[in-house]
């Protein structure tokens, strides 16, 4: 698979250099960022539910 050779034709700057949908590195970083965000969301809701336990019916 032409990875590095195809990537060199794109000249991105700034954050687009690391997060874009054209280069191999950019696509990989986008995928990892999405998975990381989902994991953080799940962790946040899990910890929030532990902090506020369900109110028992009286």
């Amino acid at each position, binding site marked *: *698979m032409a990875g590095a050779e195809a990537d060199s034709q794109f000249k991105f700057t700034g954050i687009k250099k690391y997060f874009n949908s054209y280069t*191999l590195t950019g696509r*990989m970083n986008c995928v990892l960022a*999405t998975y990381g965000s989902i994991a953080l969301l799940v962790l946040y809701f899990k910890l929030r539910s532990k902090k506020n336990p369900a109110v028992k019916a009286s």
Partner: protein
Amino acid sequence: MNENLFASFITPTMMGLPVVIIIIMLPSMMLTSSNRLLSNRFHTFQQWVVKMITKQMMSIHSPKGQTWCLMLVSLIIFIGSTNLLGLLPHTFTPTTQLSMNLGMAIPLWAGTVFLGFRHKMKSTLAHFLPQGTPIPLIPMLIIIETISLFIQPMALAVRLTANITAGHLLMHLIGGATLVLTSISPPTAMITFIILVLLTILEFAVALIQAYVFTLLVSLYLHDNT
């Protein structure tokens, strides 16, 4: 009638012991090996089939992918021979069982995925995002691609199960209808019988095609990951 229709899909037992293991081993017992350079007609034909399959399936692969040659050729011969043997009357077809097909699909698919993550981590991860995706669609497409990855082994197994089971059921139904119509209306029974013959020919083709499709898809997953 209802009970008879699905009776052929029940895992056979003999005196309480499952004989399905012997049934699964049957194709390998029928396909012989020889230590001679030039063997008999049957074995020569067998060798020709294996050579044709190897050339057809393995030519697209890299050397790393070609290490799976034995696995893939064995797979297509096993599924093909099992499906063909199942077309004989009163036989049990192991590939109608979802458990068996999942048992083949999941380890093979998982093997290709792990191979991809082990040897081409960057490329495998980048595969989850098609090139040129617009920025607002990126997260959604990554989730969709992940789901489609996990659906692959399910689709492999269910495709084979459904095709073979549906074919067998249809043959059962149309055969039963032909039998019943013989006493009611012989001309209609004749038409139904012709349909049954055509369906049987179709089922022979489906048996081989489904084996080819299963193996081809595993081969494609392997090619993507090597």
